[in-house]
């Protein structure tokens, strides 16, 4: 088991014939993801390494079952492509694209809600259900199957933590990137709910950062969770009012501080890793890995 995607997930790639799209489509196929088509307007009927290319998402959906779409679409056109996937009935839409305007992001997320679609991102590395399916851009080699679910706002920091876990022999059920922007489709709470229900996941690592109040909201949920949570929050040293790379990672008007988030998480019963490499040992404290 895993959350959101697994070995039966049929994936299409929107923007499969662009540079980034082509590279990561090959990587996903190499990982074992069931990529069943690429979308590239005007190139319908062509093939990419044996992969069928369609002009539109509807054309792909008419042809076969599509469970998820991965978007490598330049920011100015990402809203349209996301709407296309949502409208066509694709139930998981992973928006890798960064720099999408906020008002477009709000429209994507609200349209998805109306249609009951799960949006991952924008500005995310995607999602990996270890050993089963990868929809997104993380390097293939770090992930091993195991009992720890990971949900994060940031990419390489997640790889860092996954690397530490894997090096310690602790595998991951699903690793999910919510995205670094101020408006993204899923929240920590959404992910924690799914992990709490997933029989294969025994503990969850929450990789948060300063800005917003997602971590605080997550804390309320963690109180009710059956499974232990280990959290690491980045941005302790960041000065207020500065965006630390991510649009969402900014302390504004005294809100979204490191201290506030850590306090809320601690009170909710989460273990806090002061440094990333402490995560594996905290996991071992909370669950029996034998």
């Amino acid at each position, binding site marked *: 088991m895993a959350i959101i995607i697994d070995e039966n997930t049929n994936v299409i790639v929107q923007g499969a014939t662009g540079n980034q799209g082509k*590279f990561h489509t090959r990587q996903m196929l190499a990982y074992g993801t069931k990529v069943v088509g690429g979308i590239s307007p005007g190139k319908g009927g062509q093939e990419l390494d044996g992969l069928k290319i369609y002009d539109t998402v509807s054309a792909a959906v008419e042809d076969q079952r599509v469970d998820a779409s991965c978007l490598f679409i330049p*920011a*100015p056109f990402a809203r349209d492509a996301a709407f296309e996937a949502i409208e066509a009935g694709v139930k998981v839409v992973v928006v890798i694209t960064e*720099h*999408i*305007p*906020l*008002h477009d992001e*709000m*429209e994507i*997320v*609200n*349209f998805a*809600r109306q249609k009951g679609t799960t949006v991952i991102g924008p500005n995310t590395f995607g999602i990996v259900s270890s050993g089963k399916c990868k929809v997104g*851009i*993380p*390097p293939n*080699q*770090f992930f091993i199957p195991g009992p720890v679910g990971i949900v*994060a*706002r*940031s*990419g*390489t*920091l*997640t*790889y*860092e933590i996954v*690397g530490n876990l894997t090096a310690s022999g602790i595998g991951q059920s699903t690793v999910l990137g919510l995205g*670094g922007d*101020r*408006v993204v489709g899923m929240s920590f709470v959404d992910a924690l709910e799914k992990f709490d229900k997933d029989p294969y996941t025994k503990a969850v690592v929450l*990789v948060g*950062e*300063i800005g*917003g*109040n*997602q971590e605080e*909201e997550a804390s309320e949920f963690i109180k009710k969770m059956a499974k232990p949570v280990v959290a*690491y929050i*980045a*941005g*302790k*040293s*960041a*000065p207020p009012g*500065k*965006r*630390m*790379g*991510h*649009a*969402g*990672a900014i302390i504004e*008007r*005294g809100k979204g501080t490191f201290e506030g988030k850590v306090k809320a998480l601690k009170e909710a019963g989460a273990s806090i890793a*002061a*440094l*990333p*490499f402490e995560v594996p040992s905290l996991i071992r404290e909370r669950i029996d890995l034998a």
Partner: protein
Amino acid sequence: MKLFEYMGKDLFSRYGVDVPRGRMVSTPEEAVSAAKEIGGEVVVKSQILSGKRGKGGGILFASTPKQAGEAASKILGGTVQGLVVESVLVEEKIKIDKELYLAITIDGSAKKPVLIASASGGMDIEEVPEENIVKYHIDVFHGLQAYAAREISRRMGLAGGIGKEFNRLLLLLYKVFKEKEAELVEINPLVISGDRLIAADAKVTIDDEALFRQKDVPHVEERTEAEQKAHAIGLSYVQLDGNIAVMANGAGITMGTLDIIQHYGGKAANFLDAGGGTGKEGTAMALEILLSRKPRVILINIFGGITRCDDVANALVQVKNERDIPVPVIIRLVGTNEELGVKILQENGFEAYKMMHEAAAKAVELAR
């Protein structure tokens, strides 16, 4: 991208929002003539991208044009809230019957625009008790509608002519917010002055990511020169005030690196997320930016995924061969082709680490 007050007011005014009559000037002489033109008492307001100007001496009143010139010369060229004042706005002084607060911003949790209003204006909204604040979430597809404006006015206790003015203003402000793709439009204070409702201040932040299609919004540069340079080549760079220059690949891991430096008692000179672009040219430019701040040590933290460690190592070596690097460079390099990368580094006199906290600890030690 934040707009200066005078730009925000100009924008509001073009949408039909009532703002004080005024003129932006950059010399005391111009302030005198602006005050003459406006007539009566005026306010001289420093134009900086920060609030709390009143407390910082950035807002002065003047009864005569001469006084307005004096006020301007007091403010111009000086600093308010740590920022240099290059221009002032000379405005009619308006009669204040009551001050309100009004803003529209984006609620990241609700994933919707939210309108925030309060009958307690003039102060920071954070200081207003929650029960005195009216919050209204706006449907992103339907926008703010007339009925919603009436409901907000009702909750604000505004009736009669001012109530109608307020309704009208709400719709206009949402129009600005939506059409200009703002992250924030704020009027504080919004002044009731007789039967007029006047935007006495204007804070507007346009979404940076939307600027490519917001062509008629004036350009405001808030970044430092180094930040601009980094931005131009696609690096995410924020200047800080420590002595350990940092470069990493990814926003989260860069933040994490900064935190570890602080954890060991050091201070970072910057945030620099090189993203995936750590090829030779990118690396060279990034290093140049880092060195321009004259750090004691450079800490590079690369977790190679798609990025190959040998590529990073080769880029560093090439840069080192081409230019002088006057400070020690501490490198943490793991991931794809790690062994090869580390070998290249070591052969060329770089110190390579496996764990990021060890590299950070070493950098802090060297920076002392």
